[in-house]
């Protein structure tokens, strides 16, 4: 009996706990608690302003009067959101941003994927020169005035596409994508070539489908950049019907130059300042919602994407 038991024990597969570097050392727990507390405090401080914005956006005029320090959601009043949705200028700006994001990402991805894939082919004559020229643009630019003159000469001034075309490529993303394409095993492409496929076919039907998560991550990065686009609009757009959401927000939040059509009534109300603030906060929440929606999807691929990009050739 004893022999059998020993035999069985030796052959039982033991469940090994996952190896981490945290063992039971003296003082370990204290340090862990300290670090965790510190980081939690940091996160709370970092998130508090957003919380404050959210809470204030739901504030009613009465609630603001009663509570001078507005820390908790005392009221849940959607009037400010209603005010915003009644503004045509808000609608238009929102629509412009949606258009710019959609067109912008399409152009971004087209240019970046073709550029990155082609530049990843090490044997191509002239490739190193082209790559250096592309990299150089990350460190040196012509400056604001020459850029302005170039855009003017291609007739993009005050054109809604000025937020789409001159922002066609973000060199950093292009380089990271190129590095990614370099990690695809050459054997995949070679076997396709043996079967008679040409390079376009390989890109479209073989490389892209297996790269979907990676491509999607960059599409999202570009989307956030286009959604937040305001610099080109600031310089080139003078037609108020063509401004993107960010410029509209700038007028509402910073410049105080936006006149809400309902603000005339608000001026009569003695709490006018209060009403405006809730509306400002509501506009911030609305503009952040698209980003918050895609944020969880982006989270997964950050680290991998950036890591691949940091691999040197």
């Amino acid at each position, binding site marked *: 009996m004893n022999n059998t038991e020993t035999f069985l024990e030796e052959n039982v597969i033991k469940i090994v706990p996952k190896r981490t570097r945290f063992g039971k050392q003296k003082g370990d727990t204290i340090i862990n608690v300290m670090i965790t507390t510190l*980081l939690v405090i940091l996160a709370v401080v970092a*998130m508090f302003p957003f919380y*404050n914005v959210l809470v204030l956006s739901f504030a009613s005029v009465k609630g603001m009067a009663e509570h001078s320090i507005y820390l908790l959601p005392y009221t849940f009043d959607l009037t400010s959101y209603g005010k915003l949705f009644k503004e045509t200028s808000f609608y238009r700006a929102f629509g412009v941003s949606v258009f710019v994001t959609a067109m912008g990402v399409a152009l971004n991805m087209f240019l970046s994927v073709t550029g990155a*894939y082609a530049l990843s082919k090490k044997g191509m004559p002239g490739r190193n020169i082209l790559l250096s020229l592309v990299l150089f643009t990350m460190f040196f630019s*012509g400056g604001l005035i*020459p850029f302005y003159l170039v855009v003017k000469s291609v007739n993009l001034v005050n054109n809604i596409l000025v937020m789409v075309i001159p922002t066609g490529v973000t060199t950093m993303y292009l380089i990271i994508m190129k590095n990614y394409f370099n990690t695809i095993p050459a054997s995949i492409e070679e076997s396709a*070539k043996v079967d008679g496929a040409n390079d376009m076919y390989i890109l479209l039907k073989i490389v892209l489908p297996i790269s979907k998560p990676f491509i999607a991550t960059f599409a999202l990065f570009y989307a956030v950049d286009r959604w937040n686009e305001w610099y080109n609009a600031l310089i080139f757009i003078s037609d108020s019907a063509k401004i993107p959401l960010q410029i509209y927000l700038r007028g509402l939040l910073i410049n105080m130059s936006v006149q809400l059509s309902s603000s005339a009534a608000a001026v009569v109300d003695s709490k006018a300042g209060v009403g405006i603030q809730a509306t400002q906060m509501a506009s911030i929440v609305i503009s952040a919602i698209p980003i918050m929606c895609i944020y969880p999807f982006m989270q997964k691929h950050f680290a991998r994407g*950036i890591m691949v990009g940091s691999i040197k050739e």
Partner: protein
Amino acid sequence: MTSKKELGVTRNPSILKTIAYYKYFYLMLIPVIVWYAVFAYAPMYGITLAFKSFHYGKGIIGSPWIGIQNFVDLTSDTAFWNAFKNTVIISLGKLLFHFPTPIILAILLNEMYFRRAKKVLQTLLTFPHFISWIVLAGIMTNILGQSGVVNQIISTFGGDSIPFLSDASIFRPVIYGSHIWKEIGWDSIIYIAALAGIPVELYEAAKIDGANRWQQIRYITWPGIRPTVAILFILYIGQMLNVGSSFDQIFNLYSSPVYGVADTIDTFVYRTTFTTGANFGYMTAVGFLKSGINVIMIYLANKLVSKAGEQGLF
């Protein structure tokens, strides 16, 4: 060069054959090349404006040459030198205060025992990176304003309200602090990825040899992260004047009371070009100066880092 195997020839293919082999790739590159030619390199030709006196009607080519007169004028422009000084100060300030923080955060997060909390914290801290400075400035004006939460709390405790955004002595720290707030999570990602690559065995071996937490960090964690820090340091230095200029951030946060401490090269160029309507040639000279200094800086930083033993960028 393309291998012989790929081309199915038994001697080295001629350059023409190679080009033909890659023809689809050249085709693919056309849109990208055109884009870079128009929007990245054509403006570089416009740098010639820095040496000319721009006459609107004549265009760039027709405007007369004035040599380095613009640069000479620059040396006596107090507004420019103020902007330049601020750019350098803010750039160094951000190097000192902002550059190390993601590294420290990454190390702290790496030390965290509670896995799930670590993920949640990372997610939360990375969020501000995706919000534009316009929105963040709106939030900050709301919170740090006269009737904002921060000042209300201060007055309840009996203090005077602090004009965070209009007081010249406190504006720069506000810039540093808010930049950290926005970017600490995002910037730490690359360091966290580097740290994840350090083999657990190293830590275990160290513990067996009796190393405490601090020694582990100093002798294992830090050397593991040092190459990444070196590369990012070079990139940072190469962008130093751009970082110091921080157009997005400062443009949306500054106002005339703080021009003296916060006006940077980019905001200076923007304001004088589009509101005061200064001479284009002059403004181009400013931009060219900034870009030129950036290139020199990145070259120097690369040299510095190579001397210190780490692999450089080129």
